[in-house]
């Protein structure tokens, strides 16, 4: 029977929904022999590349030796700092706008299943279309400044945050909502104290993926327009075939991406560990 009985409603629990794996970093033991082995393997890989580059006399413009990249990183870092700051600023602005709209939209739209059905295809379209592709068009509209980049970042990260947050907000646990209502909870209280905490783990996942999407789009957008930003440096160094500083920039971008991941890993550990 699919009638609305309290028994049936009560069975809606969170069990079997532990699809968020916060253990990706936990599995690494930051101290002791495990760490030594991890570092050792990394050193071997880098040394192997270094050796291969020298052994096969691979020219620097094809693939620079790790030692070259390292020295380029040190030498050009002071020059790159303003570019890093521009990239971070664009990323933060576009991402904050996108994420905020994404979360609010998810919270509202999941309340109206029919509207959600109408809107979802467009959100999927935004998620699957690379927003970098829109940058030339946005430049035509908004000029060469930071505006087209920020819009592209917001468009790339926002839908990603939204789609994950929606999954979170859609988990309505009828028994927990009934519990709050039995104490006379208002709609706002139910949102604050039940629906939002229930959705939070998925919101954090959305913010993590959205952030990384935003970074990718940011660097891509910068490669199109010129001016300041890490993406512009990639175009610049590759046009001069200066591959050592080129890879140095790539490493900086990678470090920003990994930092985003680690940041949300710790946020998830603090605020969503109940789910793991």
């Amino acid at each position, binding site marked *: *029977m*699919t009638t609305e009985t309290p*028994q049936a409603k009560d069975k809606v629990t969170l069990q079997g929904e532990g699809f968020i794996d916060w253990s990706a970093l936990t599995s690494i033991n930051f101290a002791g022999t495990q760490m030594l082995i991890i570092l050792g393997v990394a050193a071997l890989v880098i040394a192997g590349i270094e050796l291969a580059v020298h052994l096969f006399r691979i020219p620097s413009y094809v693939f620079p030796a790790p030692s070259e990249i390292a020295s380029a990183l040190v030498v050009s870092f002071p020059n790159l700092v303003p570019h890093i700051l521009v990239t971070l600023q664009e990323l933060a602005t576009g991402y904050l706008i996108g994420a905020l709209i994404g979360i609010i939209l998810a919270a509202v739209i999941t309340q109206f299943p029919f509207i959600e059905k109408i809107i979802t295809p467009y959100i999927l379209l935004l998620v699957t279309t690379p927003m970098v592709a829109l940058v030339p068009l946005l430049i035509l509209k908004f000029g060469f400044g930071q505006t087209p980049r920020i819009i592209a970042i917001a468009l790339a990260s926002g839908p990603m945050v939204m789609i994950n947050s929606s999954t979170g907000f859609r988990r309505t646990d009828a028994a927990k909502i009934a*519990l709050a209502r*039995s104490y*006379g909870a208002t709609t706002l209280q139910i949102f604050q104290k039940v629906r939002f*905490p229930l959705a*939070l783990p998925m919101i954090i996942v959305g913010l993590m993926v959205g952030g990384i999407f935003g970074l990718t789009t940011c660097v891509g957008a910068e490669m199109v327009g010129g001016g300041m930003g890490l993406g512009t440096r990639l175009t610049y160094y590759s046009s001069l075939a200066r591959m050592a500083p080129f890879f140095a920039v790539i490493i900086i971008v990678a470090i920003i991406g990994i930092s985003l991941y680690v940041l949300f890993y710790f946020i998830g550990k603090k605020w969503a560990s109940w*789910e793991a």
Partner: protein
Amino acid sequence: MSDQPVIVVEKASKTFKSARGPVRALESFDMFVNQGQFVSIVGPSGCGKSTLLWAMASLWPLSGGTIQIMGQEVRSPRREVGMVFQSANLLPWRNLLDNIHFPFEIMHENPKRYEDRIKELLQLTSLTGFEGHMPQELSGGMQQRASIVRALSYDPQVLLMDEPFGALDAFTRDEMNLMLLNIWEKSQKTIVFVTHQIPEAVYLSDRVYVMTPRPGRNSRVFDIPLPRPRPLVLTTERAFFDIVAEIKQTIYDDVQAAADAGKYQMDTYAH
């Protein structure tokens, strides 16, 4: 006054809409519960016991009839009425003490005023020392005990319990029953307890209401004359078994009557 009715249920009916048309869950059910009484409702699975309880907590409206609690008709959730749910229903993102503070947050009250009471309840339920534990770190029995502490923490006069020990094993259930009687005797609450475990209902209650198969109607009412306090060993005595057997027989007769009338099909009845 022990003979003053605290809960009066008159002609309570509830019809649910479903894809296959309306389903009558409860029909013209009457019930009276006196101050400080422990009353159970038993009946076959899906008969509408929980439906009635949820209506008493004002979690959904009745389709017909009235429920009065402490002289006032139930229209919205009331502070004097506490509810214990089928599963422990703790919020997994809050530790035990924060779960107990949850009702206070919703009602904008300061739990500090009830600190002593909460401490005593934690003591009675052997949960002292586990205040900082997360629900998933507690056993099923501990979780359900915590949910009872949460329901009693703000001192409601009436406690509604919806198959609270249904998910627990037989021995844990016995322990919980003993603990519940202990708390009830100390606190003089009025308790309405829904279960499909007839021995549990007999052991705990002053009075047992039997509900017919869906739609839930009044079948028989049993007053349980067993003396109190009731030790667990009582459940092995002849007098206890006789009452359990009579209630079981009543339910089987009701089910048979419904089946004869073509209203009850064993296979499709499970929800």
